[in-house]
Structure formats: C-alpha cells, structure tokens
C-alpha cells in the first residue's frame, strides 16, 4: 500500500468529528459507540503505519496535495511519530470505552466532536513536518482542550478553563512571534529545511526565537513556571479527558518542543537554550512533587505527579545540550526520555482511569473516598496500587527502567545536582503514593459494603496492569523500539535526508 494513506491519520478523526451532528438524534449510546468505532479505525491505520515504518526502517512522508516540500506542507511519520500516533489512538480508544460509563452530562454530541478533535490535534502535532502547521495543530488541540475542561459547566470547570485559556493565549502569541523571527531569518517554515539552514543563521536570532518557542510550547508541555493551569484543568475536566491530557496531549507538546529545539542543533547558541531547559525541567520535577504532597484530593495529587513525571522526561531531552548531540550519552538520554514518555502514558492512563472510576462509583476523589477501597472495589484498588508502585519507580515495574536510565544519563552528562534534586523529589513521591495505598488497604474499617465493578473497565485496568508488569519484567522489547524513536528525534541529519526537498528559496 502507498504510504500516502497515512494521511488518513488526520483525515479519519477530522471528517468523523464533523459527522457527529448527523447522528445526534440517535441517542447517547449511538454517539458514544460511534466514537469507539472511529478510534478503532484510527488504531487500525496507526498500527499499519507503525508496522510499515518499523519494518521498512524509512519514515513515511505524506505530501499534501502532491506538492513537494517546502512548497507544500508535509507530514513526517518516522519512528517516533509512528510510535506515539499509535499510543494516541490506543489511549483514545480506551477512553472512548470509558466514556460509556463516565459521561452523563449533555450535550454528548458536542463532547464526542471535541473528543475526536482532541485526538486529531495531538496526532497532527506529532506527525507534522511544518512549523506553522504545528502551530495550527497546537491551536486545534488547545481550543478543544479549553472547551473540554469547561465541559462540566461548573464554576470550577469554567475557572480552570479560563486560567488555561489565558496562559495558552499568551503562549500561542509568543510561539507565533518565534515563528515570525525564524521565518524572517530563514525564509522557510519547513522543518527539514530549517534544520539545513540552522547553522547559517545569526545565533542571537535563533536563541531569541527558540526562547519564544519554548515559552509557547512550555504551556502545553506543562513545564515550570507555565504549568499553573494544569492541576486545575486536570481536576475540573471530565475523567476521560483528564486521562487523555496526561497520556498524550502533554506528550504532544513536549515532543513538539523537543523536535523544534533539536532542529537547531547546528546553531551556535543552542546549548545555552538547552541549559535553560534543564533548569526548567528540574524545577518542574521538584515543584510537582512537593505540591502533590500537600493535596487531599487524589485526582489533583495525581495531576501534580503527572507534571513532575513530564519534567523528568524533559530533563532527559535537555541533557543533550551539554553532552553534544552525537555522543552516546545523548542517545541514552533521549531514548530514556522517550521510554519514560511511553511508560508514563501507560501508568497515568491507568491511574486516571481508576481514579475517575472511583469518582463515578463513590461520588468524589477526596482522600476520604479512598478509605477501605481495597474491600469495596478490590480490582480498582489493586490497579491503583500497581500504578502507584510503578510511578514511584519500584523495580519489576516499567517506570523503574526509564527512571534509572534517565538518572544514569544525568550523571554521565555531568548534571549531578539535578539528579540529586530529582532523587530527593522521588522520595517525596513515594511518601504520597504510599499514603494513598495505605489509605486504600489499611484504613476505613467501618466501610464494608462491596460495589460491583463494571466488567469492561476492570478488563481495561487489568490489561494496563499486565502491560506495566510485562514491560517491567522484559524492558528490552520496548527499549529497542524507543531507541529507534530516540534516534529519530536526535539524528537531524537523517531527518533532513528523508524529506524530499526541492530546491527553491534562497539560503540565508
């Protein structure tokens, strides 16, 4: 089959989203089943793309309208994008199933539409090969995210959405200024061509532009100090949406940031920008963990923990600045960071699924609701326990491997101080997750009535638990995949080589 069919990754969710109003009359069940069907189709295409990219070893370049880049906009689906597009599709599918239980608030047709558009936006951000197209997909993601955060129509939801919107608005304006500077200096918006020109442009312009782009994308990637919106939004949005935020929306933001940064490796001002990113990432980890410790609301606590885990992945990417892009440390750091993103997607999907399910069954996510959960909803409590052990980084679970590899890379790159801070923060993380586990199993002797758990949700939770343990026991299978994905991010030379640029425009 022709690789151009990979454009279906964008086309399927986009066109299906706008068909939702047609089946509006058919009722709640029909709308939600339609969403499940669309996500299944998306998984099929994503799996085909994944298989093709990983067997041929070549990225799929989709050229919109047959125009060759840089004249036309192209999609670049390499190792990294193929992996994450698949993760986006699978996470959306699981949450589409969860919707059947979780979503009672009307108007569901609007919800279904926004749900599909959120999936589309994240897929597009990961797959695109054009920096302005990246901006458009980022705005699709964030506008749908604003709407979804406010979807519950409570005061809290509106407040969280408004905070997100103001920060996101400033961020997107800064991102656009960065694009303006880059376009003014290079005369191109195609990522491959930008990478070619990176060494030729005035380094001050590149630094200023990259700083602005980081600022814009850090809002989406939830890096300190631009993540104030995140815990509110996670807490206030519908439960499936929270899980989607943690599983892939934030990952798409982080990926976009890293991709744009790595394109400018050849520029002389690059390592200074990466130093800034190391500091931001370390502070994100520390801030996230210490804020999580104070929370009495479990959903908000997990949200803070999610922020700090993303900081850890960003830390891995930022190590490249000091080590130099072609060294072994750099490839270890980037692969470990990608591995961490994959692991974090699985674990946080499970945690938010289980916590959301508790909220639906028991009416809230305060710590008190989790008292005696081990007796009331044993499977859910078991899943939360496994996920908590995994996040903390206990051996035999998946996050352990990526955390260890990240910290080794940090020491080898010479950022011992950051590694110490991160290890200290991990202890804090262990404290609050064990507190949750303790509350679930060893307190609340007075509550004993059992709640029957829904079979599909139990099946999803146990499947995710199985994946966590499988990766924990046999990390090498996934490690080989993420190493390829990491090299795809890091090795800009091969990125440029694979995009069939035609020779137009002037070199700066």
């Amino acid at each position: 089959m022709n690789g151009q069919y990979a454009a279906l990754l964008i086309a399927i969710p986009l066109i299906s989203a706008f068909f939702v109003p047609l089946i509006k009359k058919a009722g709640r069940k029909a709308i939600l089943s339609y969403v499940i069907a669309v996500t299944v189709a998306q998984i099929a295409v994503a799996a085909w793309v994944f298989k093709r990219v990983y067997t041929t070893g070549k990225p799929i370049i989709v050229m919109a309208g047959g125009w060759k880049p840089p004249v036309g906009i192209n999609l670049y689906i390499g190792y990294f994008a193929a992996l994450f597009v698949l993760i986006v599709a699978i996470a959306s599918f699981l949450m589409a199933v969860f919707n059947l239980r979780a979503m009672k608030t009307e108007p569901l047709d609007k919800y279904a539409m926004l749900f599909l558009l959120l999936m589309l936006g994240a897929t597009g951000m990961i797959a695109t090969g054009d920096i302005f197209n990246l901006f458009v997909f980022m705005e699709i993601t964030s506008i749908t995210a604003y709407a979804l955060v406010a979807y519950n129509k409570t005061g809290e939801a509106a407040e969280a959405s408004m905070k997100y919107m103001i920060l996101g608005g400033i961020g997107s304006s800064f991102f656009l200024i960065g694009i303006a500077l880059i376009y003014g200096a290079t005369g191109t918006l195609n990522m491959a061509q930008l990478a070619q020109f990176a060494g030729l442009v005035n380094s001050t312009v590149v630094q200023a532009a990259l700083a602005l782009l980081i600022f814009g994308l850090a809002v989406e990637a939830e890096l300190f100090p631009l993540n104030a919106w995140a815990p509110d939004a996670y807490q206030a949005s519908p439960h499936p949406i929270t899980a989607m935020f943690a599983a892939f929306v934030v990952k798409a933001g982080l990926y976009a940031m890293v991709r744009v940064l790595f394109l400018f490796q050849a520029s002389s001002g690059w390592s200074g920008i990466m130093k800034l990113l190391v500091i931001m990432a370390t502070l994100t980890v520390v801030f996230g963990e210490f804020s999580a410790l104070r929370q009495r609301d479990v959903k908000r606590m997990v949200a803070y923990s999610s922020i700090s885990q993303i900081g850890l992945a960003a830390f891995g990417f930022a190590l490249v600045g000091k080590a130099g892009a072609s060294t072994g440390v750099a490839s270890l750091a980037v692969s470990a960071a990608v591995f961490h993103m994959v692991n974090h997607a699985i674990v946080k999907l499970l945690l938010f699924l289980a916590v959301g399910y508790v909220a639906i069954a028991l009416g809230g996510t305060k710590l008190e609701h989790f008292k005696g959960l081990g007796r009331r909803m044993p499977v859910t409590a078991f899943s939360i326990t496994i996920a908590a052990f995994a996040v903390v980084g206990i051996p035999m679970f998946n996050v352990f491997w990526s955390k260890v590899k990240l910290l080794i890379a940090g020491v080898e790159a010479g950022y011992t101080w950051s590694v110490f801070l991160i290890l200290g923060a991990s202890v804090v993380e262990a404290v609050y997750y064990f507190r949750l586990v303790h509350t679930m199993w060893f307190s609340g002797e007075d509550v004993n009535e059992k709640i029957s758990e829904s079979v599909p949700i139990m099946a999803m939770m146990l499947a995710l638990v199985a994946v966590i343990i499988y990766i924990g026991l046999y990390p090498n299978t996934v490690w080989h995949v993420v190493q390829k994905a990491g090299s795809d991010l890091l090795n800009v030379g091969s990125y440029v080589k694979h995009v069939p640029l035609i020779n137009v425009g002037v070199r700066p």
Partner: protein
Amino acid sequence: MISAYYFGSIALIMIGLYTVLVKKNLLKILVGLSIMETGVNLLLISIGYISGRSAPILSEGVGPNQAVDPIPQALVLTAIVIGVATTAMALSVAILLYKKYGTLNIEEIRRLRG
C-alpha cells in the same frame, strides 16, 4: 522606514501583555489578549513587507517581482481565524464564569487552589 512597523507591532504586543498581566477584570484581560494577537499578526505581515511593492495578487502588471511575500499573509489569515475562535471560546467561558461566581474580578474567582 520598515523598522517603524516593527516598533509599532512590538508596542502593541507589549500593551497587550501588560493588560493581561496587570488588569483584574476578566474582560480587560481578554481584550489584552486580542491586542497581543493583533500585534503578532502585524509583526508577521511586516516581516514579509517589501517597501513599495503591491499586494501578492497575480494580475496585469503585478508579477512575483512586484509583489510582497505572500506567505506571511497566508499565515496571518490562519492566525486571525484561530484568534477569533479563541476569543469566542474565551468570551463564552467568561459568561459561564459570571453566571457561577457573579463577578468578573479574577481575584474573587479562586475556588481551585493548592
């Protein structure tokens, strides 16, 4: 001469940013965001502007050498549409906020914290 456009657009961005960061009324903040967007759009346009050339519409007497750079104009068209969508979204959430809290002062809209 062209630098005047740059200064103008940067000034607009700064005014917008100032409004967003300092004002307490939600509607003023949203106006600030719009001003900022306008400034960014003007900056993009002025980057593609070449003094003395006409709009990039192919017609009699206007070839590629007589027109300004069309790409920033295409970008700005997209950015304007996105800006309108964001503003509309923000205003509708502001209406919801006013219904729930009875105020638009951002210092009083603070139920989520910690």
